[in-house]
């Protein structure tokens, strides 16, 4: 068992601290995503895994992708002391976007759920720029909505989710190499 070297710390009060640029959208905190992925679980035990060079090699060999992360935050979802699954936070960086997302795995390593935690566009700053948003005031009959939530509704942003799909493959390889 390779997992013996991981120290799981309990209890959990770990949140991800993120500094949000003006055009970031935060959907879920780590804690609320954990609750959604594993409803009813009473403990989330965290381990900050630091990959060994051999593990990085193994993950890269399994996925054919570079493993750019030096380590990963992995939570064990527990109910009454029983393992219900794993909750892994991962990051993908594409051409136009940076995404923090979470993958919930069953104890045997099957994907249960994927939730986007936060999404940042490397452009699109203008669309969500507060100064620009101010321009809406008084311009539409529903300016309240223009300011509060209208701006998040952008048509034409057909961004490919391919990077997340590739990221999930890397997370599954991480499970095989570090947790199984």
């Amino acid at each position: 068992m390779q997992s013996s070297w991981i120290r799981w710390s309990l209890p959990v009060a770990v949140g991800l601290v993120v500094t949000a640029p003006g055009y970031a959208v935060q959907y879920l905190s780590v804690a609320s995503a954990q609750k959604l992925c594993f409803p009813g679980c009473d403990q989330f035990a965290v381990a900050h895994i630091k990959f060994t060079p051999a593990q990085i090699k193994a993950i890269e060999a399994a996925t054919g992708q570079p493993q750019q992360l030096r380590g990963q935050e992995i939570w064990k979802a527990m109910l009454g002391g029983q393992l219900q699954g794993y909750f892994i936070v991962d990051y993908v960086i594409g051409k136009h976007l940076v995404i923090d997302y979470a993958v919930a795995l069953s104890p045997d390593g099957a994907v249960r759920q994927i939730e986007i935690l936060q999404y940042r566009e490397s452009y699109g700053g203008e669309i969500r720029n507060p100064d620009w948003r101010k321009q809406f005031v008084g311009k539409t009959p529903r300016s309240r909505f223009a300011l509060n939530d209208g701006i998040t509704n952008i048509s034409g942003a057909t961004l490919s989710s391919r990077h997340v799909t590739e990221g999930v493959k890397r997370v599954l390889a991480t499970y095989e190499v570090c947790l199984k």
Partner: protein
Amino acid sequence: MIVRARPLLGTFVEIQADGLSELDGHRSIDRAFDAMAEVQRRMSFHDPASTLSRLNRLASHGPVRVDEWTFDVLKTAAEIHLVSHGVFDVTIAPHLQRLGFLPPAAGPAVPMAARRWSFADVQLLPDRSVRFLHPNLRIDLGGIAKGFAVDQAVAALQAAGVERGVVNAGGDLRVFGQEAFVVSIRHPARPGTALGTLSLSNRALATSAHYFADERISGRRLGPFINPRTGRRQARLQSVSVDAPTAILADALTKVVMLAPDDSAHVLERFGASALCVAAGRGVRCIPGGRAAFQLAAQPFFPSRRHRPAHSFNR
């Protein structure tokens, strides 16, 4: 207000639900995502276990019974095919395969001369069975299923008691509820800026454009817009946004306008829709003309001083 996002249908799907408690709101969003994942399972061209793949394997040999959702999508595809005089056609899958937008078919390639079929060769039978009248005919629902999935997600949210919400699948979006939403349309040439805005209330909006659609295939400028008559890529416009009563209509009608903008007014009117088109170097226009549902961006919507406001043009 709860907003969540998941990767689905090859893009990012964002769902907003207002008017329920946090717990019930999250549950309603879970159901909406589940409905969209189910649409993906049934209508994916890539998944050999999907209803669509079964159809593509078997329907040229005899009638194949399909689920209600797949049949509904095919019925809508048939109606738009008819009204658009064949411009909208979901039987272009072999062309998309040849051009590399879809994975290639097994077996020998079908010569171009033998590719003489259209959606008219697809029979929709009364017992929800489907039959292909041409041996090489294959369907891809990529131009319509995403919109249908958005509609199903909206139905799931409404069934769960959500009062007001948005489902946005990478630009194909639908809003519902008493109060309107303001939606920005991304500028095709400057994806960081808005082309215009639209106040949407119980309506759908879909955008087809070239800025991201072809990202996966480097060196190709045009997105997967195929003229069904020639089997070749064609796009007369850089970006098309269609505002329609449902997302399935908005999604499908963007392709009609993209391929044949000059003949699309009657099609749009038939389905209660309108379009905002951008042609490279020629500005912006609305179809049908003079009845613009779109509030075009005047200066205030553009943050950049360098930008000159878009103006409409008449043919």
